[in-house]
């Protein structure tokens, strides 16, 4: 790889990183935190609740949101 190619690669990577930094500034609060929470809840269900032998029984009196 020539120096020019290496430089292009590095600059492209840096640009992507800057865009990631900027979007995480704007969306971090909601999106990333939400992702982390979602993953944590699913882990808890699969590893703790299910393993404990607690089955799912269809609930009454609820509705879909959105």
């Amino acid at each position, binding site marked *: 790889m020539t120096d020019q190619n290496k430089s292009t690669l590095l600059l492209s990577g840096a640009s992507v990183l800057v865009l990631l930094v900027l979007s995480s500034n704007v969306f971090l609060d909601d999106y990333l935190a939400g992702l982390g929470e979602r993953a944590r809840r*699913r882990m808890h*269900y699969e590893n703790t609740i299910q393993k404990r032998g*607690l089955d799912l029984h269809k*609930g009454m009196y609820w509705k*879909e949101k959105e």
Partner: protein
Amino acid sequence: MAGTVQCELCPTECVLENYQVGGCRTRINKDGTLYSLVYGKPCAVAVDPIEKKPFYHFLPATKAFSIATAGCVLGCKFCQNWQISQASPEDVDHQNLPPADVVRQAMFYGCRSITYTYTEPTVFYEYMVDTAQIARQFGVRNTMHSCGYINEKPLRKLAKLLDAADIDLKAFTEDFYSRICGGRLKPVLDALVVLRQENVWLEITNLVIPTLNDDPKKIREMCGWIVKNLGPDVPIHFSRFFPYYKLKDLPPTPFETLKDALKAAQDAGMRYAYIGNIRTEAENTYCHRCRKLLIERIGYHVQQINLTGGKCRSCGTAIPGVWS
């Protein structure tokens, strides 16, 4: 991306994302459907005298088959059963006891009724309803001890299967309910009225806590409300508070306070007021007409019953309650 659901069982009406568990810890959203985690999985199963529930005017001196699962819709800082009510179902031991087996065991132990109690029956609603339906078929009565924090629709459906209910009316201010319990007063009052309308035998319990809900004016207001909206025949049980769980810094309720509460109830026109967990005459039932002793109790043990066909043996007055 799986959808969000909103539970409509209790007034909290939690909105749940995928894999999120509700505030009661017993209901979960999985892939857009709401499930109960505790169906058929009680963590407490016992046979108790029905007086313990406390029911004083419902099948006295009989045994109640009592069950509960973990979880609760509220978070009262004085909860006597907090180890299971404030726990999550995955944190406590449970047995597998499908509805049919509950009824089978209740009959095996000679219990005239099944009581859904200890924690909060609202959280195991589906389990309770299915069990109650089978119990009905076999002539076993259904009773519950609840905080009454349940929405009207599910309550009306449940009430058609219930023979009696003991509701905790913990205080008569919104402040107490939200600060100390994490809920609201109004839904509880609404639930009491619904149960009355559905002709479920009602008894009320009130835990008197020094400095928090022992204001005599408020107690009088509460009893006045009960007489006006539910009638003078609803028995009320005032209980003594002992420092526990998150309220360890308060003193136990002085006997005087409980006596005052009793008097306030009687002055408001309530015919049957009791003091629980203290050995006094206030554990006995006296005829509201002639004041003769009807039922003598020492703790949960019934010593004598002076009723015939639900009427006072001395003066013949029909005594409110369910006697057979």
